[in-house]
Structures are given as C-alpha cells and as structure tokens.
C-alpha cells in the first residue's frame, strides 16, 4: 500500500450508478480524515496566539477533536491554518507550504487579515488582501482574532464538509465559495455593485462631523436612508 505514489482520490472516484463497497469505503475514509485533522504550525501574527496556542491549551483543548498533533513539517500536516496577516514577502512561502502538503489537504483562513486583509486594506503597500488570492481556502473563520470557540466552529465546519464527500474532489481543482441561491432577478454582480456604492457613500461622510452634528442633521441623515454611516459612527 505504501508504494502507491499516485494521488489516492483518483482511484476512489465514484462509479456512475454507484457501488456499495466504494460508497461505504468512502464513508470510512471520510470518517478517518475528518477525525484526524493535524494542523501545520503556521502562524504569522495575532491569530496564532488564539487559534494555534489557546486552542491547544487546557481550557479549550483542541485535543478533544484529535487535532492537537501540530506538525512542524508541511508534509505531515492535513490542514493549513492561516493564522494572521499574509504580506507580499510571505506570499511565495505560503504558496510553497501549500504545495508541499500532501493530499488531501485543507485550508482554514482565520481572522480578518487572512480573509480580506482586514484592517490593513487601506494604506498598506505590502499586505495581501486575503490568503485566497494565493491558495484555495476551504473555511473562513472571521474575527480579529477569532475566539478559540470560533476556530472550533470552523474546524467542525471543515469536518462537516469532509463528511459530506469533499474527499472525492480532484486535487487540482480550485473550489469557489458556495453561495446560497439568489432571489430571481438579482445577480452576484448587483450585490457587489451595491456594496461598492454603499462603501463609497459611507466613506464620504466625515464620521466625526456626524458625531458632532446637531439633531437636525442627524435626522436629515436618517431620512436620506444612509443608516450605515450611523452604525459606523457609533462604533468608532
């Protein structure tokens, strides 16, 4: 068995019509894979403390899920947890790490920086805006940084994905994030355009002025329907 150097998922491809043996074997394999997700010790910044270290610590104890065997070598790891900001200088290394991992490999992006660049989107010349610009990501765990519980949820989500048959994917194919079905008449492009519009509109309002504004101007803002600027100003 050990001499098989080909990627195994290929010969476990389901036959059309389905075979009982293969299907139940697949279930067993998925069960083994989802219960033994060994992470790679990889953390660039803040998220590493919460996601790599605090989860392993006594209070949260990721060992309960069998995922505490952090391997320092990418060859032996199953899941690459991108914990922290990825900058341009790190990007090739991250790519190499991903290439070095053995199939099946999974990627969890934790924290705002790994998802989108987070607080470093504007004004930073070196931050990569999201690790998925470099490698495919399976699960996104939001937060800055996410709480350990949040990471567990991400891990359980990944386990669910594997249980539902993600092992049979072709290793070379990069998956797109799955979107819920949109209402008729609305495309993805519309949402994106609206979002951009909203963001631009919001950014044009001086937040401090909004804060100092009189009740009259606040009402004017409310009437104009630009509620997002109000949300933003209370947060600041």
């Amino acid at each position, binding site marked *: 068995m050990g001499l098989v150097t080909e990627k195994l998922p290929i010969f476990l491809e389901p036959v059309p019509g389905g075979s009982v043996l293969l299907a139940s074997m697949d279930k067993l394999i998925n069960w083994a894979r989802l219960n033994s997700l060994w992470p790679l*010790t*990889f*953390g*660039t*910044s*803040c998220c*590493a*403390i*919460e996601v790599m*270290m*605090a989860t*392993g*610590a*006594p*209070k949260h104890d990721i060992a309960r899920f069998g995922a505490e065997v952090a391997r*320092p070598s*990418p060859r032996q790891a199953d899941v690459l947890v991108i914990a*922290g*900001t990825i*900058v341009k*200088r*790190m990007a090739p*290394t991250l790519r190499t*790490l991903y290439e070095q991992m053995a199939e099946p490999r999974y990627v969890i992006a934790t924290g705002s920086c790994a998802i989108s660049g987070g*607080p*470093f989107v*504007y*004004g*930073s*010349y*070196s*931050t990569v805006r999201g690790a998925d610009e470099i490698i495919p990501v399976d699960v996104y765990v939001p937060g*800055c*940084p996410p*709480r350990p519980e949040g990471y567990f949820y991400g891990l359980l989500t990944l386990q669910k994905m594997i249980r539902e048959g993600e092992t049979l994917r072709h290793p070379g194919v990069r998956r797109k994030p799955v979107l819920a079905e949109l209402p008729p008449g609305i495309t993805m492009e519309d949402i994106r355009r609206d979002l951009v519009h909203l963001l631009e509109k919001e950014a044009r309002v001086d*937040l*401090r002025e*909004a*804060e*100092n504004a009189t009740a009259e101007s606040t009402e004017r803002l409310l009437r104009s329907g630009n509620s997002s600027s109000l949300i933003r*100003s209370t947060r*600041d």
Partner: protein
Amino acid sequence: MTIAIRTLEDLTRPSATPDSPLATQEYFVNMGPQHPSTHGVLKLLLKLDGETVREVIPVLGYVHRGMEKVGEHLGYRQFVHMSDRMDYLSALMNNWAVSRAVETAMKIETNERIETIRTIMAELQRIQSHQLWWGVFGMDLGAFTPFLYGFRDREHVTDILEKTTGARLTMNYIQPGGLMFDLHPDFQKEVKEFIAYFRPKLKEYETLFSENVIVHKRVKGVGVLDAKTAISIGTTGPVLRASGVDYDLRKREPYGMYSKVKFEVALGTTGDTWDRYQVRIEEMKQSLSIIEQLIDNIPEGKTMLMKPGAKIKPPEGISYSHMETARGVLGIMLVSDGKDHRPYRIHLRTPNYNNIWSITHTAPGWRIADLVAILSSLDIVVPDMDR
C-alpha cells in the same frame, strides 16, 4: 561618490574552501520563515559549521504590514486599534503608549482613576505576556508541559481582562483621554482571587522548570550579552535589565501610578539566557505586588475625559513618548503638521526590532539548540518587529 546597495545573495555566497585538509566546509541553512521556534515568521539565515553557529543573519519583513504608512491614513484614535495588532501580547500597553503619545502632544491631563486602572491593566497584561513567554520558552527547550501550564494560568488573566474589555487579545481598551468603558463590577474581586491563585503557581513553575538540572545546563552562561553591547544595540526591557543595566522607564520616567507604588526592578548580572529567564520570573512577582497595592485603592472619577467624537488635532511639531511594555520600550514619534486630523508621520520604535539584532552578537559560537534558547529568551513577537 556612489554607495553600493547590497542584496541578500551577496551575503550567502559560499566561502572559499579552507586550506587545511581537516577543516570543514561551512554551509547556510534557512531557519524560518516557517519554523516552529522562530515564533511566527522570522527567518534566520544561519551559517553553520557542523552544529556550531558561525553567523546569524536575521531576515525580517515576513509580516511587514506597513503599519507606519497605514498610520498616515488613519486618525489618531483609529491608530490605537492598529497598535493592538503590533505587539499583540502587550496590547493594552501599546494602547496606552499611543494614547499617552497623543495626550502628551495635545497636553491632556488625565485623572487618577484613569491612571490607576491603566496601571493595573498594564501589569495584568505584563503577567499575561510573561506567562506565555514562560510556556514558549519551555517548549523551545523541548519540554511541552510548561507551555500548557503557562497557558492554563494565562486564561485566568484573559478572563478577567475579557470581562472588562470585551476582547481576549486585541483589547483596544485604553483610549486617548481615558478608557473605553468603566471597570466590570467583579474586576476587583477577580483580580484578588487571581493573585491568591497565581502566587503558589509561580512556585510550581519553579519546581517544574527553574529547578530542573537540564534547564540549568541548557541556559546558564549561554548567549552572554554584556551591558555595553546591550546598550549599544539598543536592547530594552528584560533583555537589557538581564545584562545588569537598571533601565526601566517605570522607575526612570515614572508614568501612570508607578511613582506611587513600591516595586523593585529585577536585574540580572551577567546577561546570559538564565538571567533573562530569572528577570522575567521576578517581574511577574513584582507585577503581582504592584497590582496588590493598587487594586483596593482605585479612586472615583470619570473614565473618559474627551468627548467621544471630538477631533484630535495636535499642534504642529514632533513629539516622542515612550513606555515600558512587556518586551521593552515602545516609543511613538508623532509628527503633526497642524492641519490634518491624521498624523503627518508616525514612527514606531518597537522593542523587538532592536532586541532581535542582539542575536547577531550573542549566538555565534553556540550550537543550533542554544540559538533556539537564546532566541526564545529574547521573547520576540514578529509583527511587533516588522510592524
């Protein structure tokens, strides 16, 4: 005249083969950016002769996010959020440093309640940071259990801080002009419980790790950093104090409530890894005693002196203010042109950027295993170094 700009390749050309037939060839090894003991993504380019380290070339910037440039795009209050993400293990102290820089530039006086709470918070965070360092130091020497013991106790502090600040790591609690919120009603009770809990645990740390003969063998006399070089390299914090230099801003330029509490500055003698270890253990004890002195004497008063939305626009000029964080001196240089509500230039003098270079002086001549111990004793946080 022309000034030659070098690149990394210039440094890594293999040296000429030595004449002696018994001589061994030196070789280069990349330690990092993905290496378990570089605490993130620091890369050390090692020139090795067998196991012995001949030269260390730190290669930084694997998490350089352009914090200073980002700062030029943000308002002063917004930049406090950024400071959390720099040295995330002393987030509150970073908040305080930025707030204090802004307060100094704008000449705002805070009241005693604010300063007391800030001091308690900073010392709690110092303990928290050193607990994590203790665990990681153990792990780097090959003992895994200290790491979990350190984290077990760290969670207690995290819980206390979380109740008040609402966050576990990036607290963003101390703001220019005061504090984000008032203390949680349980704060005092819980802190006292924690002090009673943690004192015996420090003894446990010593029985488990400090008194272990292998630890002594591994760290005593290793990586000596003498006082003169330490000052010249500009190291600060426990690294400098371990070399016997009494440089603690809490004593030298007291801020917060440090002038009103009694504590001793932990000092080393020789500046080896063991001294750096001992200094931090001692600092935890001192921090406990500082908190103990302050926790019952929090005066009444407002916790925010600035109007929440008020514009912060310091007068034109340069101002520099620094503070003692868990790793050393964090200096914030603010340059305002007096016209904008954003800084014209913000320079961050982070402790780790200076501390890391001391390894080029201390590590050569030691083994790879010692290099790991020395590096760990510097207690680096890479995002703080790269900014």
